[in-house]
């Protein structure tokens, strides 16, 4: 229910012209449970915009989003527009006509293409996802028809993407929730229920990287199948679902749009007492804490640890921040037989009496990661509050009072959703653990050069290849610190770039005697006559001070000269996070050409370029046969 007081407060803030209105609006929008509340908040937003109530913070560029499908796209577009706006992803919208999507997509002169969308949301009509023959037809005939439905949907997406390079978000199909056919529904592919389920699965499995599924089947099941639909809303105004489900669909769409340019969180930081086990180890002793299969509560904590272990397997780094004596806390991990998580699962273990916000900052420095890639979990509201206040970049999860609900809370947090799973994700913990071993070696090595020599580094440079695209895109979208231009690119953007002869693009992998760092640096150059413009230069901070940047410059100079370029031109575009590379080009021997508030340009003549000496052995170079 909309809270009348909160409504009143927002109204007051608006009438008084106070910019706090926007913070309140964002908060209320996040909490809004139903359609009419969201719609009212959207009206308030439009009133505030009409009054030109000033907004604080960054102004975000609008994403051009086209909506089309077999339904009326109003008021879905209203909700998408509102949620996008309050969540920092404002959209400029283009709406297709009711059930006109096939011709809008097939006709190259249509308004869809005139709009030049960056993202297209397509809601294909449910009535076209139906087996047209008899329930008793052969399984093969039914399967073939489902396959044709999937292929025609994939073809629509392909057509949009080829023509516009847009990312495509497509809803799949809700399953029927009525009892029609009874238990027989699952014994034939001819029923709407199994046919749509089959189409949904095949669509998801076959979707190319530019196609993102908005899983309506899942959203409706989560919401409740009966109330997800509203026949009257279909007859009267051609709605895709009930007004009750519409906010869930809109939220999912905005979430998917945000995922296009945002990486998942990397580190999960865990409290210990009453988070990983029941009780307080300092008071109850290792024998007194609740963990394991001897009590329902102990089982719940163990299940939570098991789920956390699966997150680690998916590539999330685990860390501990606990108010405890280090030895007492560590002993549980070393010796308690029922613990699922062990010390070698944890990349950073901070059990001490410092404020947790300080511990988080220290972890970020040690692991060379931004605080905004951290998620902190605690059962104690006071600890959560300290982190919110003193390390506001960190996302926080306050666990509820019942440990049996911990797993669900983490599963619903949406911070760790994989985009495309790369095998390097799974090996990440060992990479970061070897990073601490390398730090130890650095402490004893007499000088930097001897240290680098002792690492036995091998670098492998490779032009962009289709198989590397997910990893390259991931690095492009998550690198903030060592990133000269911070230009984000999706997998689809990269695929397009690879076919453009003006561009050179390569990535670097590095390994040393402690392990494989994987793909850690990306360079994109764009040739214009005799100049090679450095469009993108970024590097994972795990390999700072390892001379990777020198080898990247060597390689770019080599490629540029082979294409008859005489100079490199680089720009630095400042962001709140990339201060570490402000003077980078000067350090690399470039000359300053031009500076203004938004960027600084540098150049390097390369007719007489001498490769920079490094301790990295390059075992492969870009655009060369292996």
């Amino acid at each position, binding site marked *: 229910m909309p809270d009348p007081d909160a*409504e009143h407060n927002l109204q007051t803030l608006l009438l008084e012209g106070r910019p706090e209105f926007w913070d309140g609006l964002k908060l209320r929008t996040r909490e809004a449970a*139903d*359609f*009419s509340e969201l*719609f*009212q908040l959207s*009206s308030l937003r*439009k*009133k505030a915009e*009409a009054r030109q109530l000033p907004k604080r913070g960054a102004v975000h560029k609008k994403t051009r989003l086209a909506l089309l499908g077999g339904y009326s796209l*109003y*008021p879905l577009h*209203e909700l998408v527009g509102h949620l996008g706006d309050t969540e920092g992803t404002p959209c400029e919208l283009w709406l297709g006509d009711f059930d006109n999507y096939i011709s809008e997509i097939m006709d190259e002169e249509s308004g869809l293409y005139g709009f030049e969308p960056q993202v297209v949301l397509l809601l294909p009509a449910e009535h076209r996802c139906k087996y047209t023959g008899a329930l008793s037809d052969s399984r093969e005939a039914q399967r073939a028809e489902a396959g044709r439905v999937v292929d025609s949907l994939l073809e629509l997406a392909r057509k949009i993407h080829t023509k516009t390079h847009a990312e495509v978000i497509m809803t799949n199909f809700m399953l029927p929730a009525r009892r029609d056919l009874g238990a027989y529904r699952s014994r034939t592919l001819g029923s709407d229920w199994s046919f749509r389920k089959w189409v949904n699965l095949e669509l998801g499995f076959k979707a190319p990287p530019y196609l993102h599924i908005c899983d309506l089947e899942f959203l409706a099941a989560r919401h409740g199948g009966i109330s997800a639909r509203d*026949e*009257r*809303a279909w*007859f*009267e*105004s051609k*709605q895709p679902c009930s*007004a009750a489900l519409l906010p869930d669909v809109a939220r999912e769409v905005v979430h998917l749009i945000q995922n296009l340019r945002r990486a998942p969180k990397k580190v999960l930081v865990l409290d210990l007492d009453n988070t990983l086990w029941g009780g307080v180890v300092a008071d109850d002793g290792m024998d007194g804490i609740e963990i394991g299969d001897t009590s329902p509560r102990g089982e719940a904590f163990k299940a939570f640890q098991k789920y956390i272990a699966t997150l680690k397997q998916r590539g999330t780094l685990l860390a501990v921040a606990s108010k405890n004596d280090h030895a007492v806390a560590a002993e549980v991990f070393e010796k308690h037989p029922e613990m699922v998580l062990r010390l070698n699962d944890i990349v950073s273990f901070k059990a001490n009496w410092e404020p947790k916000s300080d511990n988080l900052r220290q972890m970020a420095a040690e692991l060379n990661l931004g605080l905004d890639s951290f998620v902190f979990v605690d059962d104690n509201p006071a600890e959560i509050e300290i982190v919110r206040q003193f390390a506001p970049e960190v996302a926080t999860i306050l666990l509820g009072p019942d440990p049996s609900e911990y797993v669900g809370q983490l599963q619903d947090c949406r911070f760790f959703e994989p985009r495309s799973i790369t095998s390097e994700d799974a090996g990440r913990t060992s990479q970061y653990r070897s990073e601490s071993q390398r730090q130890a070696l650095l402490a004893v090595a007499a000088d930097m050069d001897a240290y680098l020599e002792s690492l036995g580094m091998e670098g492998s440079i490779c032009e962009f290849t289709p198989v590397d695209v997910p990893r390259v895109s991931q690095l492009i979208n998550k690198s903030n610190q060592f990133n000269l231009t911070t230009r984000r690119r999706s997998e689809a953007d990269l695929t397009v770039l690879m076919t453009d002869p003006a561009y050179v693009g390569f990535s670097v992998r590095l390994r040393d005697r402690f392990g494989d760092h994987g793909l850690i640096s990306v360079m994109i150059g764009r040739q214009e006559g005799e100049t090679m413009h450095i469009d993108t230069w970024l590097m994972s901070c795990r390999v700072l001070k390892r001379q990777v940047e020198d080898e990247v410059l060597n390689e770019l100079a080599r490629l540029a000269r082979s294409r008859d370029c005489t100079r490199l031109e680089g720009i630095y575009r400042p962001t709140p996070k990339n201060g570490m590379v402000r003077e980078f080009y000067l350090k690399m021997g470039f000359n300053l050409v031009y500076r203004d508030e938004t960027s600084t340009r540098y150049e390097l003549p390369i007719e007489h370029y001498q490769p920079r000496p490094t301790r990295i052995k390059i075992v492969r170079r870009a655009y060369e046969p292996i």
Partner: protein
Amino acid sequence: MNQSEVLAKLQTVFDNVFLEPVALTPALTAKDVPEWDSLTHISLLVSVEKAFSVRFRVGEVEQTRNVGEFADLIVKRMQER
């Protein structure tokens, strides 16, 4: 609730949905309000049904010719509960 009580409550729903203030009278029609198009209408109905805890039958709101008749319909559906 009678028609005038419904109208009073309806006024608050309209205030939340429309950007410009709309003064409700029984004779008012959608044509009199520039913002009140078929699209805003969908959102308006969801809000009305929620505020009065009623559910209209398919097509019947379309049959009402002005706000007064609409309020009468709300009264009728409320009496059925």
